[in-house]
């Protein structure tokens, strides 16, 4: 590659963020797609792989006696500190990376070279996994009130909308087109979610071009049509997710919000979610707190509060709760918008849908939800997540916030979601990784022009294939019957918003619980399944044996046989408690306790687990010695990265003595 000035640098040190004494010496490689650090000497070649597309910033720091430090921050919240011996090499690496991490053409992105060795048919199948028409059918649409409109075929009306849009039956093409002209970027009101139990719906759009006094008959008719599509209710809510001040400021630019006097039967409501710039700065501040070296509790809590991050998460959640309540409890339809209707609107509509419909809390349903509210309605993935070199002011963690809302809900409702935290974390990773084509570009139109589906693979198929890794063992499908709509409380003292260290300190394994309840229960469940199978096999064999014995030993009386039976079943209980018997025969069972690696068996199995781990860049490392921190283990290569006992020891000292 012409951009790589320096493909390989030796004697580079990789610093540990928590303990400066724990530097690893190795070789740094730059490839067309990755930065790779390979540790010297260690038997199990420890490797750290970082995709160029994950890198958010590179900082060259002042040269010291030991070399030239290079700080790499990643979008998945990994922070890598390298020290390169020669200033010149460091500069070359820096210049190369600057270019490599800012691709200018989509074709430079990893998904166009990534090949998971699937044939064409498999790839096509993968893209078919999530089908939005099927989804609207599931909601019960088309029906008497809603229909599919082809007004936007060839993207004639709105280029950031999908070609197939669902609108009220009474909304004619004339009304839609008229309304679209009165809305920012012509994003007219369209259906996001329909509740077939009571006909209430969630629609979405951008802000109206109302200025101080402008009106649009078609737009007013459009909102009427939405109301009429819900015969049970005589008004609709119009929810503007912006702070009132922001919305008012927009009026001066000829935009703004709906005037209740002009629209019949609407109830207008502001919900103050801040804009993308505020959110970007807030995340930045929170990450600074995460990067603090041994902060005090006050430093941390004060920094967290000061960042405002959890306040913003709560604002998004509150908006979702408001809408879900309106739909489920009041049976009132809601039109949601912000400015352009592709950031806050996407967040809020998807949170509300998730609260309302248990289907979206399944793995498949969640994929559908992302596809519906984010991908199809033109969330600008490329701009927000900086896939191509662009305006840094466009970047903002919009979908990250949504994923965090989901995690906060998972913490409150541990049995309500089919998927686990890992699923969210891997999803976040791939939104930035550009390894799959799903989140390329800013709209469906662009993806179609780029022929994404013919040239890249779908993430959904990849996640679905590895779904066993992403299951929540506590998920109770019957939960959805008893708890169709999730009703979280709103006050912080009722709904405790927590700092998500699993995401923002994802690579500081030492900060996380050392034993994972999820992994433990998944191992038990897997074992249970094997036991079920074995039980069946044994049952059959017993029946066969009994038959052959009966045939062979006709001398044996039926009475004796039964006695023997009874004697056995009473002794079997004590037998169940002898572990030797169990472990000898069932060696292939997975380790029950992921952290107990002191036995050879489980250590072996753990390595296998790591190897089969679905994502090469996302190795889930397990401690080999329970409790001892595993901070050294950030190698992305699947297996073979067992932490040494000593590394854990050092970090302990650092933690306890430094305070």
């Amino acid at each position: 590659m012409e951009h790589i000035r320096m493909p390989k640098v030796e004697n580079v040190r990789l610093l540990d963020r928590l303990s400066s004494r724990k530097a690893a010496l190795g070789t740094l490689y730059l490839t067309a797609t990755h930065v790779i650090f390979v540790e010297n000497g260690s038997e199990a070649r420890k490797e750290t792989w970082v995709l160029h597309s994950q890198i958010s910033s590179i900082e060259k720091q002042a040269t010291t006696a030991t070399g030239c430090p290079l700080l790499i921050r990643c979008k998945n919240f990994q922070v890598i500190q390298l020290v390169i011996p020669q200033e010149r090499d460091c500069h070359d690496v820096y210049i190369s990376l600057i270019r490599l991490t800012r691709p200018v053409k989509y074709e430079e992105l990893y998904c166009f070279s990534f090949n998971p060795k699937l044939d064409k048919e498999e790839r096509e199948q993968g893209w078919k996994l999530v089908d939005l028409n099927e989804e609207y059918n599931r909601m019960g649409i088309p029906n008497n009130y809603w229909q599919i409109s082809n007004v936007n075929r060839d993207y004639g009306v709105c280029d950031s909308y999908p070609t197939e849009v669902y609108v009220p039956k009474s909304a004619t093409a004339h009304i839609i087109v008229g309304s679209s002209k009165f809305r920012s970027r012509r994003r007219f009101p369209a259906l996001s979610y329909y509740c077939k139990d009571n006909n209430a719906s969630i629609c979405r759009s951008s802000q109206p071009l109302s200025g101080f006094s402008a009106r649009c008959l078609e737009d007013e008719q459009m909102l009427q049509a939405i109301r009429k599509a819900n015969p049970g209710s005589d008004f609709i809510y119009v929810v503007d997710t912006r702070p009132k001040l922001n919305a008012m400021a927009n009026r001066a630019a000829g935009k703004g919000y709906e005037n209740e006097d002009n629209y019949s039967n609407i109830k207008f409501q502001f919900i103050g979610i801040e804009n993308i710039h505020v959110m970007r700065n807030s995340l930045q501040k929170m990450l600074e707190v995460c990067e603090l070296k041994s902060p005090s509790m006050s430093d941390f809590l004060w920094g967290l509060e000061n960042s405002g991050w959890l306040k913003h998460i709560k604002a998004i959640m509150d908006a979702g709760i408001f809408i879900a309540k309106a739909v489920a409890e009041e049976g009132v339809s809601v039109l949601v918008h912000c400015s352009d209707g592709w950031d806050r609107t996407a967040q809020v509509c998807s949170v509300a849908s998730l609260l309302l419909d248990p289907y979206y809390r399944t793995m498949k349903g969640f994929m559908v939800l992302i596809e519906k509210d984010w991908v199809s309605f033109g969330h600008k993935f490329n701009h927000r997540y900086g896939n191509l070199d662009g305006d840094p002011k466009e970047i903002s963690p919009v979908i990250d916030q949504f994923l965090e809302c989901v995690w906060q809900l998972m913490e409150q409702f541990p049995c309500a979601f089919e998927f686990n935290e890992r699923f969210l974390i891997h999803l976040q990773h791939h939104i930035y990784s550009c390894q799959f084509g799903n989140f390329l570009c800013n709209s469906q139109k662009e993806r179609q022009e780029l022929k994404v589906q013919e040239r890249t693979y779908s993430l959904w198929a990849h996640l679905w294939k590895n779904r066993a890794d992403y299951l929540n063992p506590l998920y109770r499908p019957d939960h959805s019957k008893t708890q169709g709509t999730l009703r979280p409380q709103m006050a912080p003292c009722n709904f405790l918003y927590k700092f998500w260290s699993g995401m923002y300190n994802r690579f500081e394994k030492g900060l996380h619980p050392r034993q994972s309840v999820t992994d433990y229960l998944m191992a038990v469940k897997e074992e249970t399944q094997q036991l079920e199978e074995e039980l069946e096999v044994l049952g059959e064999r017993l029946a066969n044996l009994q038959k052959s014995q009966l045939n062979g030993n006709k001398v044996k009386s039926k009475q004796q046989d039964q006695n023997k039976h009874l004697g056995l079943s009473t002794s079997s209980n004590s037998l169940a408690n002898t572990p030797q018997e169990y472990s000898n025969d069932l060696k292939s069972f997975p380790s029950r306790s992921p952290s107990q690696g002191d036995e050879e068996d489980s250590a072996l199995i753990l390595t296998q687990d790591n190897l089969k781990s679905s994502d090469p860049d996302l190795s889930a490392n397990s401690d080999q010695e329970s409790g001892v921190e595993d901070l050294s283990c950030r190698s992305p290569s699947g297996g073979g990265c067992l932490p040494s006992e000593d590394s854990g020891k050092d970090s302990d000292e650092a933690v306890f003595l430094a305070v």
Partner: protein
Amino acid sequence: MEFAELIKTPRADNVVLHRPFYLAVEGTLCLTGHHLIFSSRRHDNAEELWLLHSNIDSIEKRFVGSLGTIVIKCKDLRIIQLDIPGMEECLNIASSIEALSTLDSVTLMYPFFYRPMFEIVEDGWRSFLPDQEFELLSSVTDEWRLSCINKDFSVCPSYPPVVIVPKSIDDEALWKVAMFRHGSRFPVLSYYHKKNGMVMMRSSQPLTGTNGRRCKEDEKLINATLRPGKRGYIIDTRSLNVAQQARAKGGGFEQEAHYPQWRRIHKCIERFNILQESLIKLVEACNDQSHNMDRWLSKLEASNWLTHIKEILTAACLAAQCIDREGASVLVHGTEGTDSTLQVTSLAQIILDPRCRTIRGFESLVVREWLQAGHPFQQRCAQSAYSNSKQKWEAPVFLLFLDCVWQILRQFPCSFEFNERFLIMLFEHAYASQFGTFLGNNENERSKLKLPQKTMSLWSWVNRSEELIKFQNPLFEANSLVIWPSVAPQSLQLWEGVFLRWNRPSKFQDEAQEEMINIIKYNKQLQAKVNALRRQIAEMGTDDRM
């Protein structure tokens, strides 16, 4: 004294009860010597509430016309409200509750009147005797002895009658050491680390004073625990500054010159009113119903509760690290050696010793390191988060310890035999109980009160299989290793199970617990079935195995 004198109005009708998670309900209120009883007799399944007077932390009364309202704030942090028609009744009831919940005499407390409704399988008062503990120790080392020097509590009033001390130190030397330590709390064995033979001792501060007094016997005692050529660590739970100030009052710390083989490390664990204020602020923040996120975080921060948790855990980890990783013996003390010292020694044992992570082992730890070690429960737990009196002795020292255990449990969810409910139960009983276990301030007082003869032990009740089952952690798999918790702020959380317990329904967390139990129960059933079948096939006398 008769309780009847205090009860002016023993009964009121048409009272409305408001309590967390229940609809308001009308019924009859009765006051007895030890309980406030409310029952709604309207339906067949009458709702009843029995509240121990000793669980009441504070009450408030107000009137709207002739309708009186009493708000009762409990030591377990629950808040209930009673609407009582009739001003006189309301006033009478309020003053009765006030009097009954603040009885001076210990012997009037409910444990002296309580008669168990269950069969006593094992007398909890005899479940954890020091002799048994010493027997265990003797099986691994003969360097220690059981001293009866304190058998009539004459040497140290806050120590138990028997203590474990180095074999080479005779009782006469112990006498002298006792004179040199605050409250006569001379260094005794707290924990022996089998893995490497290192020990943890605890004591109170040495009485060095401003002129640097020394005591040869004291030096000899603690040096007796060192291996030849090895150094030890003294963990002083006070900051250096505080320890230096203590000298003016006759206290102090071990001088390097006199203890050359020991390295002293100062940690800063807060005491008494600072902790009590922290609890009051935290509970206030948790009860704030406002929807404002910023206010919540800043109030949480201002309470400093999690800071205390972090400091206590850090000191305990340090002690454990010195023992297990540095291979050094440790002496822990603060000022009196009855509060932060015990937090550190008991938490270090949970980190180091798998036995302390079992139910029985944890009970034994509470008995050894808190009750026998003379943590003044009666003083510390006299009031909880709703107290407004500024008494000096109250402090949530034990609650902080339980919170730290919960933090470790959260980080190692599979390494503990008990669950969160077990810890919450201990919190409740430490503050108000029908059992005598947490009465009194030390063994001396307990023996004078004849608690073992006159009251029931908490352990007699807990250690029955029908109770134990509620406290078992379904995920438990014995883990023989040392468990090192993280003390980074990101790893420490608010203990919702205690502090948000009455603010948010636990329904969904309970459901998760239940599901865990089901998953594991089903797995065990299948294992039993498979093993039975295997055995059966094997017994059929063929070699036709897999």
